[in-house]
Structures are given as C-alpha cells and as structure tokens.
C-alpha cells in the first residue's frame, strides 16, 4: 500500500524530463525489459513491421529481430495459448490483443489455463506472461473497439489486473508486470495513449531497475498488495477510480474544490491484487465515497468496491456510497458515447446527493 501522492516525485523535477506520451512510456518499458532479459518477447496481430495498430510496439522488431517481436496469424486463442506454452518453457511473453472486444476468443485459454495453471500444478508451473489489452472508450471508436472488459478478468482467480492512469505508471507498471511471476492482464486506457506528461524515461528506468535489484518491495509498488495511490489529497469525500476514469475524477475534484468541497482521489492502479488498506484509509479520512468507472455498473469492479467499503468501512461512512459508471448497455456509437461515459457533471450530481446536510 502506498498512500503518498503521485510517484515518483523525482521524475517531475529531473532535468531530462520532456513531454512524453503514454504510448512512448509503454514502448520504452517493453524495449527496456527486452534489452535486459533475453526471454522477454512480444507478439500479436500487426505488432511487428507495423508496430501495432496503436504503434505501441513500434520499432521493436527492427531493434530486436523477428524472433523477439513478431506477428502471429489472426487467432487470439492461439496467441494466448502459445504464449502460455512459451511461458511454461522459460520465456516471458508479452502479448497484445488488438482491441478489448477482440480478446474474447482468448477467454477460454485465459480463464481455464493461464489463470489456473499455477494452482493446478501446485505452484510448480508459474506463467510469467503479460496480456496487454487496449480498453475503454472516449476515442470515437465503433462497436467492438471500446469495451471496458476488466470485470470479466478480475472475476477469475489467478490473474493480476493492472491498469495505469499516468505516463509514469505506464512505464513502471508494465515493467513490474513483465517481471511478475504471475500472469498479468494489463489494461491500457486507449484514450490516454497520446496524452503527454513531462517525464524522464531514462530516470524511470534507473529508478525501476535499482528498486528491482536492491529492494524486496515491488519495484512499481503493486506486488501482492495492490499499491493504490492517493493522487489528490482531500478531506470531505473520496473519489475511487482507476485507469481512464482517474483523469475524470481529478477534473471533478478540481470542480468540487471551487464549490468548497475537498475531494480526495484514489487511483487503484491494480484491481487484482486489490488494495483494501488504501481504500479503508481514504474512506476513514473522508467518510464519503463515489466510485467512478467507465464500465457498465451492474456486477462490475465498481460494485465490488462499494461492497468492500460497506463491509469494511461502514462505521466511517456519513452517507451511502455512490457509483458513477457507464450505463448497462452495449457500448454506444461514437456520436453518443459522451452521454454514456462518467462525466464531471455526473460526478458533481452524485456529489450533491451525499447527504451533506448532516
């Protein structure tokens, strides 16, 4: 558990910091991992010569050769199943699913084998593999290209579910995912791919690698505990969020501040493992909570968070816990998605309902 503000502070002030995209951070995380460890390989659909439809794997084939970064035939079950076999035999595959909804053919492999092999073999066969999935909406995408599918995976024991919300985390968390002995489903909010932060990636590399070498603590802070981070401190209400919704939560917190309400924003960073301690800490501090997530709300990660607050932090609460999520509908068309996605206004409306009169 980490309850400090955005990590790492050092990167913000480093002299070599320059505007860096989320995509570049992911790309550098992969190439740094491949540079360090010959067993890391990257494959999927169009990830080779083209560098992926989002260019996240740009240049990896050119730099490391076709044995290390390559295109596969179009078959997602095949990609996941082959990756698992390679992980059984000494490799650390990082596979790309082209879009959230196109990962569904791989679900049987992921649910029945990738998630369960360590348990089935009594811990003898570990599968150090990463399944990268661009997910979520807000990019004007059409059907099958905007799903928030994290709950399906989070419901399956044996998988870790990471989702970074910042450029810094895109780098650090992907490095930790690749180094993890457990399979990680790595959800990349595609609306963040081209956002920029002032970051020094080589300083991050040094920071990550020295932490990985010198400390038993997880190098990006996730490990077995989850590593949620308070990204904005506040005292009146907690906005609990992850991935693409963190930026929306931060905007809503800024707007709330203008109305004199101090909102704390918790970025979960990993859904599995789940950071119960950080969640309880922020709720104990503020006494109110709104859970914000893009995915449809029914039987969702947001539902789980509300349930956990109720079970563990009931006596800290001054009002019922609210959710601001997508509607329970198939992802709408590009022209209508703005009505579906959690918005600042909708979060502020929820805020109004938190029984402030007490």
């Amino acid at each position, binding site marked *: 558990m980490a309850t400090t503000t955005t990590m790492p502070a050092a990167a913000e002030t480093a002299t070599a910091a320059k505007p860096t995209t989320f995509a570049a951070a992911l790309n550098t995380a992969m190439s740094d991992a491949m540079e360090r460890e010959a067993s890391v390989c990257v494959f999927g659909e169009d990830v080779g010569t083209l560098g992926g439809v989002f260019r996240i794997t740009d240049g990896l084939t050119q730099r490391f*050769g076709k044995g290390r970064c390559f295109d596969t035939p179009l078959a997602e079950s095949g990609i996941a199943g082959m990756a698992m076999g390679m992980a059984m035999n000494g490799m650390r595959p990082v596979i790309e699913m082209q879009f959230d909804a196109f990962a569904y053919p791989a679900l049987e492999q992921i649910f029945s084998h990738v998630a369960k092999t360590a348990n089935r073999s009594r811990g003898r066969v570990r599968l150090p593999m990463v399944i990268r999935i661009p997910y979520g909406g807000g990019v004007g995408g059409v059907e099958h290209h905007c799903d928030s599918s994290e709950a399906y995976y989070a419901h399956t024991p044996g998988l870790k579910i990471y989702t970074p919300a910042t450029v810094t985390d895109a780098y650090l968390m992907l490095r930790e995912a690749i180094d993890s002995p457990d399979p990680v489903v790595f959800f990349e909010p595609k609306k963040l791919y081209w956002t920029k932060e002032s970051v020094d990636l080589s300083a991050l590399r040094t920071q990550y690698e020295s932490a990985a070498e010198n400390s038993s603590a997880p190098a990006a802070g996730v490990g*077995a505990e989850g590593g949620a981070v308070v990204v904005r401190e506040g005292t009146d209400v907690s906005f609990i969020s992850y991935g693409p919704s963190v930026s929306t939560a931060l905007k809503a917190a800024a707007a709330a501040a203008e109305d004199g309400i101090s909102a704390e924003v918790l970025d979960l960073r990993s859904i599995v493992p789940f950071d119960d301690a950080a969640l309880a800490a922020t709720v104990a501090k503020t006494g109110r909570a709104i859970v914000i997530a893009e995915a449809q709300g029914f039987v969702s990660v947001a539902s789980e968070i509300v349930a956990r607050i109720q079970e563990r932090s009931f006596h800290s609460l001054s009002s019922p816990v609210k959710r601001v999520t997508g509607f329970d509908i198939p992802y709408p068309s590009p022209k209508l998605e703005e009505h579906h996605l959690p918005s600042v206004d909708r979060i502020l409306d929820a805020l109004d309902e938190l029984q402030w009169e007490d």
Partner: protein
Amino acid sequence: MTSDTAPGATEQGSHIRDTSSSFGITPEQYMLPAAQQIRMLAPDGRLIPEEEQGTSPGHEYPIPEDDALLAAYEALVVGRRVNDQNYALVRQGRLAVYPSSHGQEACQVGAALALGDADWMFPTYRDTVATISRGVDPLEVMVSFRGDWHCGYDPLQYKISAMSTPLTTQLLHAVGVAHAAKLRGEDTVVLAMCGDGATSEGDFHEALNFAAVFEVPVVFFVQNNGYAISVPLSHQTAAPSLAHKAIGYGMAGEQVDGNDMVAVLATLRRAVDLARKNSMPLLLEAITYRMQAHTNADDDSRYRESDEVEQWKQRDPLQRMRTFLTDRGVLDENAETRISGKAEEVAAALRLAMTTEPAMDPLEIFDHVYSAPTAQLREQRAQLADELARNQEG
C-alpha cells in the same frame, strides 16, 4: 537466444516444398496421407510384408529394435492392468472418475516411447497410461481422478503438462513450448495429443495453423477411437479422414492402425524424427477403438451395438503384440512372468494407495493461486483455518 530466427515462413509453402524434394517426391505426394492406414501387424499378430504395409514410396518406417519392442510390450501389459484396476476402483467408489484407454494402449505406449528425455508431451484426460509409460508414478497421476485439486505430478520434472480437460486447448501450449525451444536453438519435439471429436474445436485449427506457420516441431497425435462420448466421428467431420486435415495447413498427415503396436511406434518415431530434423509439425491419426464407455458415468449401450465392440476385440493391441513377439523369439515364458508380476505390483500399489485416505491440507488451496498470496486470500485462509479449528474443538 537466436533472435534473428524468423518465426514465420518467408515464402508461402517453401518449407514443405524443400522437405518433399529431399524425399524426391512432390509436395502433394508428401502431404497426402498414405492411401490406407499404415499397418505392420495383421490382426492375428503376423508381420505384414513391407510392400503391403500401406506406406508410400520415399518414406521409410523401420521396425523398432527388439529391445524397444519388448519394452513396448511391457508397457502395454502394465497399461492394460492400470486401466482395468482403475475401472474396478471406480466401481468400488475409490476413484471419482476414470476415462479408460482400454483398447487404446498401443497409442498410449507409443506416445511415451517415441519421445526423448528432453521432449515434451501434452496429454488429455484419457492419457493416463501414456503419462505412466513416460515414467510418472501411477499414484501421482491418479491424484486428480480421486478428487484432489491439483494434477499430482510435477509437469516440469517429467516434461508432461497437466492432463488437459478443455478439449484441444493444450495443443496451443504444445506449440508454445516448441516455439520457445526453437527460439533458443534447442531441438525439443513436442507431442500434442487429442481425440477424434476434439478435432472439431477451434483451438485444434489454431494450433495446427500456428505450428505450421511458425515451423515448430510438434507432432499432433490424434487417437481416433470412433466416438466423442456418444457422437460418432461422422457427425464431427465430412473430411475423408482426420489425417487429411493436415493438408490445409501445409502439413503432412498420415494414418496408422492404432491397435498395431509396431506400426504406431514406427510411425511416431519417424514423425518425431522428421519434426526434429526439419523443425516442422506433422499430424498422425491413429485408428483405434474405445472398448469401454466414455467414463464410468456414461452408458454406451444407448449409442452403440455390443456387436461392434465384440468385433474390435479381434484387433486387441496386446494379444497381437504378444503373438508377434513370441513368434519372433523375443518374448518367452520368463519374460512373460516377469512382466505380469510387474503389472500386478503396480495394480497392488494402486489398490493400496486408493484405499488409504489422502492427506489433504484444506488450507493449501489458497497457497498457489499467486506466487505470493494477496491480502484477500490471506484473509480467506485465516477464515477457513479458524473454521477448521472450531470444528476440531466442537
């Protein structure tokens, strides 16, 4: 790491053209299955003359050495005994379930004996005898069938994956193991097993296609025992044979009489050898028969005639091999006594083990889900520990 190895074919189909020309035949002659099943022993155990074995010109299938044949016979006898002992244990309620390979033992033994120590095997739920024949302790293999939560043996130690239940999913893992080995420059061959009905699954297609495109040495070994639970093969496919399915992937496919121990071992050895030498996959379809119901929970009288089963008794792999080896002077009474003594020992150990209650620690179910248990799993473990402690007090 030979990172420059291109995992994909540079020119479509070039691999198959090179390989076939090394045999002096056309790609079509190479890929098309032999006109009939390859068979070396007649149903009465007599050795069939080479020109009548069903092999095609340009292909060599040497008969295995006598030592290997005797070892195969021993594994057949032990395998049959294990099948029948487990069947009995299920009826006595000592085992939860057992999918028997009674009648298919030649395929089971061939699969194990065709591989080298560094090679890998990917079995299904029906392949207990194959895993035992490769050296896993029968008691370890039976752990999951008696109702434990794990696969029993160490897959990495034996280079045998956990027996797979979701049909053909394991074929892709086999491709991955072979691909990883290839990228490191190792010449590991992987034997990937499945049944006839399973060839309808999507992962069967994806695995064959990936193996062919990435040119990895995987031998796909299909035991065609006629049925998928109740459904005959004619309802699974309109292909002339399962071996034909290989052609569409740019892969060689052939058929063997799966109840002929000599032919199964000879064709599998050749397939493993070709896969290793040329770094390419092959498909081998063994025609055999499931002599018993799908599992103890199945009633095969609802979908097949007992006449059919009776007819297949005439082609029993064990009896056939016994006659052949006796006529060949390889099997004498001493060897026969030694081998049946060994089979009885294995059966006795199984009976003993399955009548003793297994020592299971319920708390261990939390320990291997992740490399380090999460906070949630630690809490749940503590909860169960507390419940167990209170149960003991009460």
